[in-house]
């Protein structure tokens, strides 16, 4: 049980922390993920994986199944080699944390109380605020720069501040593996970068293994070690950002004509969508 925030959980290894085997997930009678024989995915320790893909491709569904928020129809999710559905949920919660898309907090809940909820898997009903909890929560707040809001109700914060608080809560949970479902939705660009910088620091300084669903391809390329591009519930391609974000995959996966250049800031691929307007303008020249 790792609750220590101060030491990185891992060095550089190639150990698989999270794996899906023949995963098929769906709602009602429709399979959203793995309709063609199941989805296999390995998440290696200490890496940041970004799952990308067009709307409705099943990327959030995959993430939720990996976080045992959804039960698969077929196949399994393995956490450190053990079937996640056979492990006590509370035990899983000490290793794997999840930040759902658009999480809700009741009105009146103050920031410190919300972040302290992250300690839930480490607590019992008679031990709800141990000295350990207090230290970890204080550190989680300081780490995301939200200590100054500790006494304020969550609804009084801006969207960007709120998202940092939610990340503090995930941090206070002290898990090696962190699953984030579109952590940058509803944020302006500056705050998107802010949140992703935080994720990057988590990974670099704390050795956290991160899997996140992202919409912005260029930010995904910048912040992830590995991209997983999904279409129609299967993995269309995966690998280093430069291998995945090509003009060809943009066409095949997103149905988008695009030019891919090198990002002058980060050296990662930069996708420039062409769109009909510019395609028509370009046509006479070519």
């Amino acid at each position, binding site marked *: 049980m790792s609750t220590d925030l101060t030491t990185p959980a891992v060095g550089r290894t190639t150990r698989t922390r999270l794996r899906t085997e023949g995963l098929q997930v769906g709602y009602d009678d429709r399979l959203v993920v793995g309709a063609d024989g199941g989805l296999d995915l390995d998440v290696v320790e200490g890496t940041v994986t970004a799952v990308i893909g067009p709307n409705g491709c099943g990327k959030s569904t995959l993430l939720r199944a990996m976080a045992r928020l959804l039960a698969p129809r077929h196949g399994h999710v393995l956490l450190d080699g053990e079937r996640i559905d056979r492990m006590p949920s509370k035990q899983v919660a000490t290793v794997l944390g999840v930040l759902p898309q658009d999480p*809700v907090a009741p009105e009146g809940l103050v920031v*410190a109380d919300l972040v302290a*909820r992250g300690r839930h898997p480490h607590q019992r009903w008679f031990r709800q605020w*141990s000295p350990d909890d207090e230290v970890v929560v204080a550190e989680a707040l300081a780490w995301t720069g939200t200590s100054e809001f500790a006494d304020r109700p969550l609804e009084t914060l801006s969207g960007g501040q709120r998202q940092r608080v939610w990340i503090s809560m995930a941090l206070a949970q002290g898990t090696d593996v962190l699953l984030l479902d579109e952590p940058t939705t509803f944020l302006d660009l500056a705050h998107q970068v802010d949140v992703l910088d935080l994720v990057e620091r988590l990974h670099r300084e704390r050795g956290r293994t991160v899997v996140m669903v992202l919409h912005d391809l260029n930010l995904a390329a910048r912040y992830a070690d590995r991209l997983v591009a999904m279409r129609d519930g299967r993995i269309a391609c995966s690998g280093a950002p430069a291998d995945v974000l090509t003009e060809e995959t943009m066409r095949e996966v997103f149905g988008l004509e695009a030019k891919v250049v090198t990002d002058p800031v980060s050296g990662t691929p930069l996708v420039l969508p062409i769109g009909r307007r510019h395609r028509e303008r370009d046509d006479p020249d070519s």
Partner: protein
Amino acid sequence: MTPPLTTTARRRFRAGPVTGVWRPRAVLVAVVAAVLLVLVCAVNLGRGDFPIPVVEVIRILLGGGDSADAYIVTELRLPRTLTGVFVGAALGLSGALTQAVVRNPLASPDILGVTDGASLFAVASVVLAGGAGVSGLAVSPVGTPIAALAGGLVAAALVYALAYRKGLDGFRLLLVGIGISSAAVSLTTYLLVSANVQQAGQVLTWLRGSLASRSWENVVPAGVVVAIGLPLAIGLAFRLSALELGDESARGLGVRVDRARAGVVGVAVVLAAVATACAGPIRFVALVVPQILLRLSGGSRPPLVGSALGGALLVVAADLVARTVLGEAVPVGVVTVVVGAPYLIYLLVRRTRRRTV
């Protein structure tokens, strides 16, 4: 090195291995409610054909006082007031649990069908038994509460079963609850119309929620349920703190959401059903009290102990008002409806304005 927690919101409370968060405001509110409760009870015990001063009542409760007065207080009047205390506490606690688990201030066991289900069965037990010629049974001190208890549990089980679809959605629970309640009210009305005048008259008093002529037989079940329910609820409250964040976050924190929610709803239903069985349907207590206490105590969900004390205070105070201002015959439930209905409208209006459900 760890930075100090610069928040005053979470001071630690510690007693041996037990740790928790020290919330002075919530504790202060609970203490004030408890003191007021004792005073209102003492005033209520002193009132009657033979008035006894408050100081004398308190002396009797502490074991002293005149023996004739003591007989009047402990044997004749205490059951009524204690029934009010326990019934109110059960309703307040039940409401606090329901609202926290459904994450909606409009939720309460009243609305989840418990109260109207209990009423239907109680009325049916009187009217149908009488109608079948089993003597003029009327409101029996034993049969009616048992019927009411069964009715409350059946209605709640029905609501739960109909609202359950791969998990329990708070809003659907509320809608189904309102539907079942309405059906129960219609059937109750039908039974009343088809009953003879004498039966209907007796049942109507019960249906308004009354503490009149309570004996120790009514006190004991309510007391036992509160004595078991309160610690159970405090244990469950730990899970509530995760459930508050929505199903997905709670699952992520390792809570088995459906089981935890079923446990909380189950305790809330039993509390409300027993309370209704003991005193008839005293409406709005479970709805109003937790929301008022939430505003007084601060925080994100109604306080459990505070709501129990507040519920007891409201019911005993309403009984006192009913007896003093409106006359002995007026049931306590009438007063709580008068207080509760405007408050429900206020909540509805406020909620519609914020455009959230």
